[in-house]
């Protein structure tokens, strides 16, 4: 996982929480988190060094690229009622191949909560690289077609939320392309026509997937698990236990109005980062 805090969101706390969930739900102990001195210092103060060590056995501290941080700004929402523009620091995720000390790695977003052992299906897999383009919203009737492609007529968008990879020449080349996209965003933006000015790893991973498949759409195999996601307009009601959370889901035709759902035993990408931080104590105790 990569975890760099901004002024409001404690990504490292999310990563620590997720590491605890990973340990409890999958039994995986080798967890690497890449962070920066500021985020680490803050969490050492709030959670304690010992607790961090018990969650993450390999902590890598790198300096932030300040220019990138100031440039890559996105809108974060805490339900429809509150939103804020904040730096989105995701520039070093494409270095995962070089940083990973393992032969097989599952690269995760800190906010992709591991509530099952499904990802264990990946270990020893014949496919050396897997990631999802198919996703499902946890409110089944809610659809967002803008998340299907880089733009309306563009290539399929892969989600860099969860990526399984083995250290092979092919995968090394894949990550080299991802890095090339990161280093030359304007060129690739013109070529692949993604919308907006924000740099997202979903874009660079999708472009690399397209190129490494011989310019064929959907050429990289998907993970043996569906990617479930919520929206940042949703909220979390409570954490019941280590693999169950109750969520407030915003009704699609009635913004600001919610329904409840019990989410159990399936990994979930939670877009509302404040919501996870609010129930982090509960989840850590679960």
């Amino acid at each position, binding site marked *: 996982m990569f975890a760099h805090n901004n002024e409001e969101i404690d990504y490292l706390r999310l990563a620590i929480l997720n590491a605890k969930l990973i340990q409890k739900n999958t039994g995986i102990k080798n967890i690497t988190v890449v962070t920066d001195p500021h985020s680490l210092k803050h969490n050492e103060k709030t959670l304690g060094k010992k607790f961090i060590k018990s969650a993450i056995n390999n902590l890598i501290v790198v300096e932030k690229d300040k220019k990138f941080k100031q440039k890559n700004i996105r809108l974060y929402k805490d339900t429809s009622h509150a939103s804020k523009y904040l730096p989105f620091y995701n520039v070093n995720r494409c270095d995962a191949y070089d940083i990973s000390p393992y032969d097989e790695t599952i690269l995760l977003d800190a906010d992709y909560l591991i509530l099952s052992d*499904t990802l264990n299906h990946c270990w020893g*897999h014949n496919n050396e690289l897997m990631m999802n383009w198919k996703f499902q919203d946890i409110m089944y009737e809610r659809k967002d077609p803008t998340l299907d492609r880089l733009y309306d007529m563009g290539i399929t968008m892969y989600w860099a939320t969860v990526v399984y990879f083995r250290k092979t020449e092919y995968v090394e080349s894949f990550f080299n392309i991802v890095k090339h996209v990161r280093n030359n965003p304007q060129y690739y933006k013109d070529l692949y026509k993604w919308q907006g000015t924000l740099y997202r790893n979903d874009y660079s991973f999708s472009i690399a997937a397209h190129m490494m498949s011989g310019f064929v759409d959907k050429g990289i195999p998907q993970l043996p698990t569906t990617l479930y996601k919520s929206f940042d307009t949703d909220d979390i009601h*409570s954490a019941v236990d280590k693999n169950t959370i109750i969520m407030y889901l915003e009704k699609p035709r009635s913004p600001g109005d919610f329904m409840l759902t019990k989410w159990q*035993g399936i990994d979930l990408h939670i877009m509302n980062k404040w919501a996870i931080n609010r129930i982090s104590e509960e989840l850590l105790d679960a």
Partner: protein
Amino acid sequence: MSTRLTKALEFANYRTTLNNQQSQLKAKTQSLLSYSINGGTFTIDLTLITFCKHLIDDGQTDVVLLDIYNNPIKVNVETFYEEIYSRYFEVTNDYYVEYEKLRKARKVHKVLDLNEEGK
């Protein structure tokens, strides 16, 4: 708002919650019916179980099966069959229990396994 309308809206809310919860349960079951072995991943379903039983009855031992990615995976069919057979019933029995619980729940908080205070 009239009592009748309030009740109707409450019922609509209950149905939406119930439908979503049933879909979630289905998704969880589907995910548990996934089985990985020898670098391949299989979806455990009736076709796979029946086919494996047929292979065993036919005297086969090591066979090549196509997984969900259409990759050829060599397995020992007897141990493979035992695993998918027991896993299928483990998962579907749990599904049945959870499904029945949902079917009998008539209030939103019961669908979600919460008490009336929402805890």
